């Protein structure tokens, strides 16, 4: 019943799909909740602080308390804002972030995962939709800081989409498939994770994905020391929570993508597949927080230059190299 990919579309399989979606949603929410907790803890420890430790044992309920607080807060819509767009924007931003979870293979048996033939493309295409939400939020707020933040976001995400996409092409070439499951299987089959043959692509991916996620040192759209909070400066309560959720959902999704494409996904010796996957995802997420604790922020023009003049050529070089190697073998 759970392996609906090979079954015809029947009522039980539709129900199974629905249940699957709900389970993934809950899983993702749980992961996001504790990603935030882990982030605050790791940042705290790296900064000689303790981090959240008040709500629940070891502060484990801190994020839940925060979310509850956000939920019961007043929902403020600025008087001069474009009301309809203002309300729509968080949803436009959030929905794709959850949808991309559909293609990430969490474990060896692909539980609840769509075995899409064009998984990589699907991910890239959907994640690009979020940019609209972010830009609309900036525009609809009718606030200069939000507008600048939204514009910066759009510019940044668009420019980094390209090196990000190109860095993935190398992996796709290696596996000969856009299907994420197949890519994992190919790595397992080769006995070598893509991170080694595709080291250049991996570096480009790491940098471009950091920028794509708007995380330090590329966190310009919400640079609080310049733009106060960027595109979500006017958002409060539940709508604000949606943006935060989007951000961390993408962090999880990008970590999953990284693990799948470069670190062999769920494959690994001894431990069960889902645990391997979890470890790899955690490593990526930890790396992001580590960067956040260390680095200052790029300037916006340097950020653009970096994408077009450094990352894009690197990604192309990687692509050509992979093609040549692939052709010779």
């Amino acid at each position: 019943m759970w392996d609906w990919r090979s079954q015809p579309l029947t009522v039980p399989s539709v129900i199974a799909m629905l249940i699957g979606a709900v389970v993934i949603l809950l899983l993702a929410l749980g992961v996001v909740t504790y990603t935030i907790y882990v982030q605050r803890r790791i940042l705290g420890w790296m900064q000689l602080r303790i981090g959240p430790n008040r709500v629940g044992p070891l502060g484990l309920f801190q994020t839940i308390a925060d979310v509850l607080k956000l939920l019961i807060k007043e929902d403020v819509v600025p008087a001069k804002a474009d009301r309809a767009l203002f309300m729509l924007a968080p949803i436009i931003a959030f929905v794709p972030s959850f949808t991309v979870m559909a293609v990430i293979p969490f474990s060896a048996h692909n539980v609840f995962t769509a075995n899409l033939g064009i998984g990589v493309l699907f991910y890239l295409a959907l994640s690009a939709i979020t940019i609209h939400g972010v830009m609309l939020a900036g525009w609809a707020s009718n606030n200069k800081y939000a507008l600048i933040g939204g514009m910066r976001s759009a510019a940044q995400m668009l420019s980094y989409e390209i090196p990000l996409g190109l860095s993935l092409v190398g992996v796709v070439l290696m596996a000969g498939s856009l299907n994420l499951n197949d890519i994992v299987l190919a790595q397992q089959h080769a006995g070598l994770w893509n991170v080694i043959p595709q080291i250049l692509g991996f570096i480009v991916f790491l940098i471009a994905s950091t920028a794509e996620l708007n995380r330090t040192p590329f966190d310009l759209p919400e640079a609080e020391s310049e733009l106060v909070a960027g595109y979500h400066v006017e958002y409060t309560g539940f709508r604000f929570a949606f943006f935060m959720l989007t951000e961390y959902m993408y962090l999880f999704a990008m970590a999953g993508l990284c693990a799948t494409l470069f670190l062999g996904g769920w494959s690994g010796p001894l431990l069960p597949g889902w645990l391997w996957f979890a470890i790899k995802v955690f490593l990526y997420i930890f790396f992001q927080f580590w960067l956040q604790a260390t680095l200052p922020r790029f300037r916006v023009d340097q950020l653009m230059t970096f994408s077009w003049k450094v990352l894009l050529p690197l990604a192309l070089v990687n692509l050509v190299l992979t093609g040549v190697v692939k052709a010779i073998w």
Partner: protein
Amino acid sequence: MIGFLKGLSVTLRQLPKKKVTLQYPDVKPEWPERFRGVHRFIPELCIACNQCARICPTSCISLSGERDENKKMKIHTFDINFDICILCDLCTEVCPTEAVLMSDTFEMAKYSRDDLYLDMHWLHDNQLKYEQAHPDRFERARGEAD
């Protein structure tokens, strides 16, 4: 590229280090002896000389005294307006009898400005609290006096 990696190693090295956070409401800070918190006041010592009120840069002290049967000045009222007191310590510096001193009471948030007018009784209670909290300091002072 090297500098960036060095930075990463610095932050990673901090992970296991001892944390400096003081868990404030659970753990109260240890104030040194000279700490200038809210005043404490010993009415028996006060000779109502008015020096503290005069030196106060913000004029937050007001006091009145009366002569007792031995023609000695006795303090009658002594109020400090903590709305404007800047805890500069000048009043304790000029006090000839050390009747007004600083304590280590520092939590002064109140819901009403009226509550910030501290009278002689409050300040004396503060003195008693201080004595209780730091018996060692008083013992030492007594030892020095002997």
